[in-house]
């Protein structure tokens, strides 16, 4: 699945950051590498951006950005 589909409160692990360019590099350098756990915390009142917790930090990603990240959901 892709990150934008992760329900609020659920935890997943990063499989791959697709896309290319500076934005992909930025996400990788924030620690979004293979195996890193990531949790969906919510979204902004107007529906976007979506918020995720990665390595202790809460990051705001737009839907198109989040859809570039492949994840597998952790069994709960």
């Amino acid at each position, binding site marked *: 699945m892709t990150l934008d589909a992760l329900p609020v409160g659920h935890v997943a692990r990063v499989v791959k950051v697709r896309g290319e*360019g*500076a934005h992909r*590099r930025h996400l990788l*350098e924030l*620690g979004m590498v293979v195996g890193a756990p990531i949790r969906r915390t919510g979204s902004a*009142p107007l529906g*976007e951006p979506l918020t995720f*917790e990665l390595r202790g930090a809460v990051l*705001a*990603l737009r839907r198109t950005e989040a859809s570039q990240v492949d994840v597998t959901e952790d069994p709960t």
Partner: protein
Amino acid sequence: MKRVLLVGNPNTGKSTLLNALTGAGARVGNFAGTTVSSMRARWNLPNHGDVELVDVPGTYSLAAHSPEERVAIRAIRATGEDAGDVVVVLLDATRLVRSSYLLLQVAELGRPIVAAVNFLDEARAQGRPVDLEAYAAVVRVPVVGIVARQGEGLDALAAAVRQILDDPEAAAAATPGPLHPWPDALKPDLDAVAAVLPEGMQTPADSAWAILSLDDAEAQLGPDLPGAEVRDVLEAARAAGRDPLGDVVAARYAWLDARLPAAFGARAQEGQFSERLDAWLLHPVWGLLIFAVVMCTLFAGLFSWSDPAIGLVEAGFGALGTWVGAGFDVLVARGLPVGLLGDFVVDGLIGGVGSVLVFLPQILLLFLFIAVLEDSGYLARAAHLMDRILRAAGLPGQAFVPMLSGFACAVPAIMATRTLPRARDRLVTMLVLPLTTCSARLPVYTLLVAALFPASIEGFPLPVRPLAMAGIYAFATITAVLAAIVLGRFVAPAHDPEVVLELVPYRIPSVRVVLGHAWRSGMHFVREAGGVILVATIVLWGLLTFPRVDDPSTLLTPDVVVAAEADGRSLDAVAASLVLEQTYGGRMGKLIEPAIEPLGYDWRMGVGILGSFAAREVFVATMGLVYGIGDDADEESEPLRVALRQSVVLRDENPVAVGMSLMVFFALAMQCTSTLAVLVKETRSYRWPAFVLGYMTVLAWVASFLTFQGMRLILG
């Protein structure tokens, strides 16, 4: 003096640490030749003396794509006079792995490092205290634990830095070089890149840097570096199904995750304070409501709370001018030829200094607000909330606070664009900010609406004057948004990478940091922009003063006297208007008349427009002068309204058409030397302010022309 560089991710408390170490003496500025802001300060190291502490822009990476990254790597790599003697890498104890990712890159550059781990208290409170000794064994540099906000651990930090500065052996021990090995699978690509890099730049770390720096088609390595050749190597690797960029980042994180297992993937537990607070502050209803209240408070503060202080500055300088003027009058009465000098000192010099300091209340207040919002963590939420809306204008959520401030005054608003993380966004915001309806336009609109618009039009159901007022605000706002879209697409330089917004934890703002921030911003303005504004005020004073007429009453011909007496105007005021007419400014008004005639203006309005370059509201007083009503007429002055209306009617023009055209002109034209002065300082160029002056003047002329001619057709 030795130099210490302060490097770290954004929001790791660098400013707080700088404040705690150096007090209020820090100076804000830009890094040479860039729009990236910097702070430097003198740090008194016990048992060593003063060193210069440089705050390097917060960054996650030292690749060379974004301006901040370029500035950071240039600062750390610099040799000779600009070299840093020690690099203090500030780390966040609650995000230790990510902070350490930056430390790995600094280590590769071969400078002595002190690792300062901040927010130890928060990590403790989260139940994940950092074992500093174990951490030091991993990163092989001196490690100091600090809580910058409370001043904890600063002595130990000073001692560690001093030891490196004074003891070459300690410096060598603090310079570990590359900390991690590269995986075998990546080595062929690193070697291939090294093969095209110049001599002296062929280590695997250099290759890794080049790979990360060339992350997309617009990225460049820098002058004298073979960017195109490296790009070819990378294309070949990608064509073969490899991903060198991803592998470089993954290799570093894998090394860190293996050595800092407790911190790997460490998540702030659900239900932490910040998350609970966000449930309210980002709530679809309450969140937007609270946001509206916070922003209204900020705007009310800028718009009206600053008024008493502004009034105080104006009254103070007015009184000073009167007092000094009276002194000169005494000297003139004794026959000393100091009349001109007196005018210069009172109107040029004292008035000029006053016109600089009059901005201070709003600047101090805005930066006080911004510092509180930023330090508390709410500024990030404000950007998050507004992102969706501002994206329509091609701007990020962070542009909201500067744009809102622009409705009070563009000068502090342009300074507030420093909070935008991306240089490109900052530039676009600065270019369109002068279009927002600042409070200086309000007296102009008030005069024009009252003088030239009827209270109602037959057959038109809505009240005309309030509608004109609301209409011009809406018009200017829509124009600013459109300008942001157009300029962002065609004018702003190559898009540097977007920065992911981080919702930093809520924290209680530190009074020291907040006051320091506001104070530095105020001083920065006075020091940087003050001189230019002062000179501009004096030049405008000169234009509307020379050539001088020693005895204005000689200009009063019998015809003029008869006409003035019939209108009941004072002869002094009429004489003053005749003096103004023959000054260079008055002549320029007549000179530009052919250019402004198609907009519906006469030379008098031209003089008013010229005068308004000092500040837009000066239009009102200048018009008072031109019409011979006196220079103390304000926008409520009935004689001024009548005179303005009459002059339009006498020219057989429709007052509404002229009024709308003038309002459109004031909405769009760049008549504010203070804004231009601040733009010069904040963009570090004359090109961009010249561009703003150019595009806004053209826009204003064309729009006013269309408005006037269109309204003439409609209204007949």
